[in-house]
């Protein structure tokens, strides 16, 4: 029996007897090169183990409150773009990204010309504040956003279709003025070029041209 197996069995025994120690204590029992293997084995136990009395989270526990706050951020946003706006705000905050950082990445990934950048900022602001219809969002945009936030495009697609099917976009637009903005930058105003700019049209298609735009 090698060190990994010994540490794993020790952890298992402790877990089963309700005397589990912090995970770090078990990882310290093996060489650095073997810790990934042990961590994988312990993670599998966590995943397959039925909840015990010790696992029960009370309504007052910090973990429960944190998760509830995160889920509230998502579900409270339900509107014309489903729960996607709240999910974007929550994930962006979790990653410490500003809206500018997100739109800079979007511009790069979607080949938006620099002249369309201001329009991109504005449309992204409208997306996060629930002013856009979910079904207008293109798959390309959702895929790019999913890459930025380390998610699956299908997750964002589904999120954009939850709820709000009967709510007109205009009804949700009012929330833009009461919702706290998570980013430090002020929302850019709408870009109204006197002459049609192809870059603006590209951005508008991404945000409102439908799934296949």
């Amino acid at each position, binding site marked *: 029996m090698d060190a990994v197996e010994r540490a794993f069995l020790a952890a298992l025994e402790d877990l089963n007897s309700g005397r589990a120690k912090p995970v770090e204590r078990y990882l310290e029992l093996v060489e650095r090169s073997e810790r990934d293997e042990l961590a994988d084995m312990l993670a599998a136990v966590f*995943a397959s183990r039925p*909840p015990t009395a010790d696992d029960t989270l009370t309504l007052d526990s910090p973990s429960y409150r944190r998760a*509830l706050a995160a889920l509230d951020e*998502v579900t409270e946003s339900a509107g014309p773009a*489903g729960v996607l706006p709240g*999910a974007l705000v929550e*994930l962006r905050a*979790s990653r410490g990204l500003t809206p500018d950082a997100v739109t800079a990445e979007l511009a790069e990934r979607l080949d938006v010309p620099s002249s369309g950048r201001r329009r991109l900022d504005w449309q992204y602001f409208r997306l996060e504040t629930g002013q856009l219809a979910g079904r207008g969002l293109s798959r390309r945009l959702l895929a790019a956003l999913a890459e930025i936030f380390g998610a699956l495009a299908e997750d964002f697609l589904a999120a954009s279709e939850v709820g709000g099917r009967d709510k007109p976009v205009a009804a949700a637009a009012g929330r833009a003025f009461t919702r706290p903005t998570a980013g430090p930058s002020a929302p850019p105003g709408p870009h109204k070029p006197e002459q049609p700019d192809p870059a603006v049209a590209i951005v508008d298609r991404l945000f409102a041209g439908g799934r296949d735009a």
Partner: protein
Amino acid sequence: MNRRHHVLDAKLSALDDAHIGALWRQAIANHDADDAEPLARQLVLRTLPTLEGACRLRGSRAGMSDADIAVAVREASVKLMLRLLHHDHWRSLGGLAAEIASEVIHDPRRRRRPEVNPFAGAQSSLRLVHDASRPPTSQTKENDHGRS
């Protein structure tokens, strides 16, 4: 605070896991995202111990601080809920939670909070003026002597 969701949370919490799972699968089969949403929320809340345990395990192994792990748990909660709005091809909810936790922890694009307080190393530039009656020199400014 969304009271409607919390009332639904409370109602659904009275049902056992099998019942919640059956209702959720029915909603997914019907492609009814509206019905699936509160059930997905409930499933995430019930899987939280696994999610948190997996984040803590992977996070501590990756050298993350408690604050980083707490943020990762929030992110994993949201991602698990989004996944449960449409995806039902998993054998174990705990397994899915652990998988998402692992993805969140190991995502190289995640930004971590600095472990060192950026202000801790700052050197004070204040200095004492021992003789306030001395006239200002090129090294001292008028305000260093106070005002009478």
